[in-house]
């Protein structure tokens, strides 16, 4: 991923004080105000990795200094009523249970409340599609934990996607995006594919259509002010509304979509009680018997995790697995669904996909990368068997015998009760706060 360097900063982009981590009058300090940088830059001039910078920490001397500065600023602003654009950005404050690690945010795109709010508008703005009919939110629906309930996503022009829409909950912790794309490691890059991608068409934007959107935004009631607040400069001309700003704002909003308040989380915090079936399911889930935890054992119930451990950025579990979902001969999966193999062309990568997060899994049916498994019970059944058996049709084959299947996928001896217990436990991972939080809701409704 490439972030701005001095050499590459767009000419129309002025450096802004808004990105500096300061508090705002009245509401400052305390809590976890953390700005983490992971900005590895492109190009010769920037081969030196940027240091990870902690912004404000509640008990540091730096914080005291900033407190003094901010109080002075407050005094200044109360006496001199100027500043068309508020130069002081209020940094995002994570509200996470202690069981969750600190998320990583690129240094070039620090989270601010104003940017997240702008990103929420853009995420739900249907003008960001070629026919004005869809937005990011059309396929990432809050009530469904930001998935869409379809087997395969449908683009704004009706084109069917080969993949099932993944949930966006806790995407801030995910190191590689998409189902099996080792090449996309930043949200700012990822979101360009649904916006502009041609195969398949998702939102279907083109350069020429984007110019019309910029005109629209410049004449919008809200956007000039929302952009100005988010990025600390004036927005008047259509070309002021850049893709870079839009991408940074949407990525910022997506990073804040966290799911941390499921019944399971409440149980960990001592605020809820799991029933006997859920408890047995939990124990099975994390046992060597059911083996679920090998690929779904992180705090996010997936394998791939990116977080800040207090000293540095940690990346763990960047793996992809073949779970024996298909075997069309030679270990093949259906076309357009061959997993990492589509990128690497190595046979060993056939059918390899990311283990998705199981948080809110009861809300995100149907399942697997292509939505080809309708229910959680069937998903579990496939794992109990050690792969999926498709008796007839064009995808007939014994997935259990896929030569590229992960060695972690073997037959598991689970009684019907045990399977029901695991499902009961998975149901405790649904998060009512996530799907009802007004901060994530469509502002156009």
């Amino acid at each position, binding site marked *: 991923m490439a972030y701005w360097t001095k050499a590459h900063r767009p000419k129309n982009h002025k450096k802004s004080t808004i990105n500096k981590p300061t508090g705002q009058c009245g509401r400052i300090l305390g809590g976890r105000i953390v700005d983490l940088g992971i900005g590895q830059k*492109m190009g010769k001039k920037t081969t030196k990795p940027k240091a990870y910078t902690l912004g404000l920490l509640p008990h540091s001397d730096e914080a005291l200094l900033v407190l003094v500065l901010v109080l002075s600023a407050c005094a200044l602003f109360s006496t001199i009523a100027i500043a068309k654009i508020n130069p002081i950005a209020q940094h995002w404050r994570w509200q996470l249970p202690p069981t969750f690690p600190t998320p990583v945010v690129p240094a070039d795109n620090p989270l601010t409340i104003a940017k997240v709010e702008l990103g929420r508008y853009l995420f739900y703005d249907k003008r960001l599609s070629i026919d004005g009919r869809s937005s990011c939110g059309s396929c990432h629906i809050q009530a469904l934990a930001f998935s869409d309930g379809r087997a395969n996503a449908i683009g704004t022009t009706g084109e069917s996607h080969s993949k099932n829409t993944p949930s966006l909950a806790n995407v801030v912790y995910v190191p590689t995006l998409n189902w099996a794309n080792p090449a996309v490691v930043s949200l700012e890059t990822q979101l360009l594919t649904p916006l502009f991608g041609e195969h398949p068409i998702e939102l279907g934007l083109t350069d020429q259509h984007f110019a019309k959107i910029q005109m629209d935004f410049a004449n919008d009631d809200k956007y000039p002010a929302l952009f100005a607040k988010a990025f600390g400069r004036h927005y008047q001309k259509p070309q002021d509304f850049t893709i870079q700003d839009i991408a940074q704002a949407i990525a910022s909003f997506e990073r804040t979509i966290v799911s941390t308040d499921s019944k399971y989380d409440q149980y960990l915090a001592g605020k809820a009680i799991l029933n006997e079936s859920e408890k047995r399911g939990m124990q099975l889930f994390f046992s060597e018997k059911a083996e679920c935890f090998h690929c779904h054992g992180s705090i996010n119930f997936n394998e791939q995790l990116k977080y800040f451990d207090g000293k540095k950025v940690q990346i763990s579990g960047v793996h992809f697995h073949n779970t024996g979902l298909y075997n069309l001969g030679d270990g093949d999966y259906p076309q357009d669904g061959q997993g990492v193999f589509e990128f690497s062309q190595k046979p060993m990568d056939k059918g390899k996909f990311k283990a998705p997060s199981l948080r809110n899994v009861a809300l995100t049916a149907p399942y697997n990368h292509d939505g080809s498994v309708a229910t959680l019970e069937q998903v579990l059944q496939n794992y109990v068997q050690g792969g999926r058996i498709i008796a007839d049709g064009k995808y007939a084959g014994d997935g259990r015998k896929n030569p590229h299947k992960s060695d972690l996928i073997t037959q598991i001896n689970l009684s019907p009760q045990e399977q029901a217990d695991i499902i009961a436990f998975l149901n405790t991972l649904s998060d009512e706060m996530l799907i009802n939080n007004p901060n994530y809701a469509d502002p156009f409704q």
Partner: protein
Amino acid sequence: MRGNHIFSAIKFSVAMVSLWAMTAQAHTQQQTKQLHVEQDSQTISPQVPTHTATYQKTITKTHSTPISLRFNAIAQNSDGKMSVVNCHDHYWLGNPKSQAKIADLRFYISNVHILTKDGKKVPLNLQENDHQQSDVALIDLENGEENCAERGNGDTNAVLQGVLQGKYRQSDLVGVAFEVAVPTAKNHSLFSAVDTPLNVQAMSWAWLSGRKFMKIEIAPKDKVHNLSDDTYAPLYNVHIGRTACTGEPATGEIACANDNRIAVNLQDPNWYKKTIVLDLNALFAQSDIRQNQTGAVGCMSAPNDTDCVGIFDTTGLTGNAQQIFSLAMVNDGVLDKSPSPKKPQKKHHK
């Protein structure tokens, strides 16, 4: 001639490759127009030397030789002639030949070298302008009109401008070598965050965190039959770029197993009088553009896309020599197949 030609700059031009030092020798009226047009389109254009001696005096001082390389794309038109393509007409393309219009036609050029008589490759430093950084240029042979309106843009650029360090005579130089590619260090930058010509959204390839080196899209008259799902798509696409890429999540660095840089090496004793011609018939020589066998419609460089087999062969990505670029004379928008370059009609003197 129709007013809808893609490259108005090319309408007049005889020579795509013009070594400024030598233009005085064959200073036809047409070439005068060519230079005039380039000034109009804000490309950097040195003063037109009135005769060779004056110019050589200049380069003795600066020890550099400005060179411009002109690109054309040609295809077989409805009259059967190999003609410079535009966004309006149908061309006979593919195997078997079928009619198609151009929808987009852009590519990046980097690693440009001028070849000398004694076998050396001298790097050509590109001049920084709206279409060039020192090491990469975008050649844009569509004008965003008519059939190119949806995929293309209004910008055009057919001429690569560079400077060769040192003194060279025309007879010292025998050809040009370049790659259709973006330098690896710049390929994976986010288009929205960098300078021209790498800031073109259409050339970005977000799903691989990189760029399309070459984006050629054609609209077959009867659409493209997608055999895998029995649907019809409007465009047959050729997107060439690095594939099999892996990102390092902590740093964002991208590494790719398949570079897919199209290497071009063109030599001709009269190279400086010719244009660099991209032959779309050669590109699609093995492709049935009426149908798509697997994956993305056309060839988007996926290693397992069978529609890429022919494209990878003609572009030389499977190890053989590329067959799509050549040096040739183009007169009045049509390929001049005569073996020797057309003689200047009349020298212009003051």
